């Protein structure tokens, strides 16, 4: 038995249906036109827009470029060293945000000297606030687990007790950069976020033996700004360090040679690896600081090709004598 459907469709119903169908077709058409991609995907990945690290340097003052202070107390020595360059106010203006980049590479206690000294970092934070800094940021992108590095090195606590904001390398703080005259730093991610917010930049590094590079000092300290698989740069360690010196233009670097890691670097691991040199270097020219640092590691400037490379690229001078370093001693 069949039933015929003799119910006729109403005109009104039909028109409504046609209307809805029309809108649906229009929507499908609209979306298609909007999203139509004639080329398909290009090779490579989109890395977003490139960033450039700002220039943090302050104007030159001949005769006040580098100071070298002897003394066992880091706090006294760093105060003296900065004072000799014209005082902290020369570097930090009222209301500025300061980024401090200590070496926090390893999850290792302060006594082993594999990382920047926490008291020294705290003292520099305090000095910045004394100069009227609005905000002081302490940050690094360590090799070992970041939280553990800031914790075990004592830097996290010392810095935040001194009033600094400690910033850990979260993924969203990395941006790609391009070093114009660089061979290696091309479309490479760097730890950019904290530095983009800063007006001034101070590097704080210990002097350490480094089996591959020869020495790790204030220039090598900027390795912490590299993101991504930065280990592959070890195939050409001298070029990458020289390029870092070209890329980063700090306000000031502080090279701490109170204790120098003579062997087993850059991790150390034993107090036996350290030697007291009781020296604190503050410098506007990091090449000069590192060149002086060489003497404390019993190295010649020519033993560190990256120094020559950076000098040739115009990042500074290794002839620290020519800058007339100011020597002093604190008790």
């Amino acid at each position, binding site marked *: 038995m069949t039933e015929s459907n003799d119910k006729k469709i109403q005109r009104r119903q039909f028109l409504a249906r046609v209307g809805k169908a029309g809108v649906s077709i229009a929507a499908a058409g609209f979306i298609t036109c909007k999203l139509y991609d004639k080329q398909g995907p290009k090779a490579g990945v989109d890395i977003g827009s490139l960033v450039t690290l700002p220039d943090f340097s302050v104007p030159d003052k001949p005769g006040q470029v580098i100071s070298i202070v002897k003394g066992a107390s880091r706090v006294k020595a760093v105060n003296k060293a900065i004072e000799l360059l014209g005082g902290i106010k020369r570097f930090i203006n009222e209301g500025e945000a300061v980024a401090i980049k200590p070496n926090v590479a390893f999850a*290792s206690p302060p006594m082993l000297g594999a990382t920047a000294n926490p008291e020294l970092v705290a003292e520099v934070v305090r000095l910045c606030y004394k100069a009227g800094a609005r905000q002081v940021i302490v940050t690094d992108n360590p090799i070992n687990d970041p939280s553990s590095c800031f914790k075990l090195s004592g830097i996290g606590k010392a810095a935040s007790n001194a009033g600094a904001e400690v910033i850990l390398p979260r993924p969203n703080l990395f941006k790609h950069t391009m070093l114009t005259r660089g061979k290696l730093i091309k479309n490479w991610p760097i730890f950019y976020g904290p530095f983009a917010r800063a007006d001034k930049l101070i590097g704080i590094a210990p002097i350490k033996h480094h089996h591959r590079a020869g020495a790790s000092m204030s220039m090598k300290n900027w390795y912490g700004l590299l993101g991504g698989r930065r280990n592959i740069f*070890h195939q050409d360690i001298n070029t990458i360090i020289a390029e870092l010196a070209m890329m980063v233009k700090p306000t000031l670097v502080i090279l701490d040679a109170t204790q120098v890691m003579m062997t087993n670097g850059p*991790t150390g691991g034993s107090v036996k690896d350290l030697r007291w040199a009781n020296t604190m270097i503050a410098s506007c020219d990091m090449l000069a600081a590192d060149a002086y640092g060489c003497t404390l590691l019993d190295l010649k400037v020519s033993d560190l090709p990256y120094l020559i*490379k950076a000098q040739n690229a115009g990042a500074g001078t290794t002839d620290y004598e020519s800058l007339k370093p100011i020597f002093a001693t604190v008790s």
Partner: protein
Amino acid sequence: MKIVTVRRISQIFFFVLFVWFCIVSTVGEKFWQIRAWPVNWFLQLDPLVAIGTILTTHTLYMPLLWALATVILTIVFGRFFCGWVCPFGSIHHFVGFLGNRRIKTAEKIRLNRYRKAQRVKYFILIVFLFMAAFPSIDATLQVGLLDPISLVSRSFNLLLLPIVDKSINFISVSARFYEGAWLILAVFFVAILLNFVIPRFYCRFICPLGALFAILGRFAIWRIGKNKSECINCKLCEQSCEGGCEPAGKIRISECVLCFNCRQDCPYDIISYQNKSSLDGEITNPDISRRGFVLSLVGGIVAVPAIRLSGKLAGNWYHGIIRPPGALPEEEFLKRCIKCGQCMRICPTNVIQPGGIDGGLENLWTPVLNNRIGSSGCQLNCVACGQVCPTSAIRPITLDEKKGVGEFAEVGPIKLGTAFIDRNRCLPWAMDKPCIVCEENCPVSPKAIYTQEIFETIREGILTISKVSGNVIEVQETIMPERFASGDYYCVLDGQRRKIKANTEDAIEISFDEDIEKIPAAGTKIEVQVRLQRPYIDIEKCIGCGVCEHECPVSGKKAIRVSAEGETRNSDRKLLLKS
């Protein structure tokens, strides 16, 4: 306040507390980090963990004493833990409620009736306990596979937390990874989804802890029951019965989880929590048939030797099972590990991972180090995993013991394994490229990785002099500008090796350090060499921490890899003749 309201508050309180403990299982000093939070408390309350380890080790590890409190309370009050405390139970309770709240009362009553299959949980319990019961034959603690507290800890810590934190990076600076988490996820979500089939499916049919409580609670002093004879057998009391214990008829005490819904739902106030037996009688014993009992008992006893036929605890042990520092010898370890994942959660570097079955079935979800995951191998100055391990499968060691200093100087450091260099993949070994990232990152002092300097003549490295002026050697061949300028290249001339400073297309500038004494004639050959530092492992010093493996720039299959040979916890796996 109504008793079910009190019960709900209790469930919410313990659930929130549980989640809080998951969050604070983070190394750090902030209030929401580990500090002194008793993050293992739920695991310690769990008598299945306590009884399991008692069976395998014949001792009760001190923190597990909490379980005694649960046991005593259960003996007095019945399965209060299931209905009032268990965070996993509360999830099931809530999901079961959500899934079935719109169905008709008659359907609800049908859904919550007792089923014979509820005895399966007893068989599971018996199998697990007998797998653990005879250490003299072979014993393994596998309760953690299905123990609800282990299961829910694992699921929250290794799945839900990392997923939630992935986008906000609040708990961890960078994303956490857990290998094989899909299986943990599958088990967790299947258990949750089964509530849509039957409410509290897991609790009724599977949960070995619930089974244990059922047995412990059979002499409970107070129990649910009818107190008046006016019952018209409307069965409304069974519409929301969480345990499926049939309070309308002869109540099955062993299945009752003390949800008190029956008391709430009875229109005649006939049901109460009392020390008398129910007026219509009760069944106190779990519904286990003798045949079922014997079968599961035999199954349990035979299972362990059967699993171990694989030889994974003998000569066929798997080198990829690198246990956290302080882990007991493998056989002892397997008697204690409950697969709760606390060590994997606390590990600040995320290197501790849930194991797969490569190392044998028993290895599933036990802690294994995977140096490719996480922020940096096993950190030298960290012993967090042993501090949180609830059963001491990983002993709570000190830093001195881990590093072999102080009073442990004689014994030496704890070795997790040994690093091996794959010379076919290593850049300086296989490709004549400088690298030694592994050496640089080795945290041992003196380093366990050392290098030997070698100069290798490079491909097409023999060049012909056309002219020498000062320290610039012009050559007849064409070279790529700056190719030898990295500071790693040398030029052998006159039997003397000199560092190359720079090069152009047809000239090499060598270091000024030593002047060229005798200007060589045109046509003389020079050799360009690359200076390499090739890494070697000092097996006596290597502690197997895996930092080298983590940092190795050969990022696919690493050119330096740790395997478990030489681990100190198993003396029969040592590598060297010397102690």
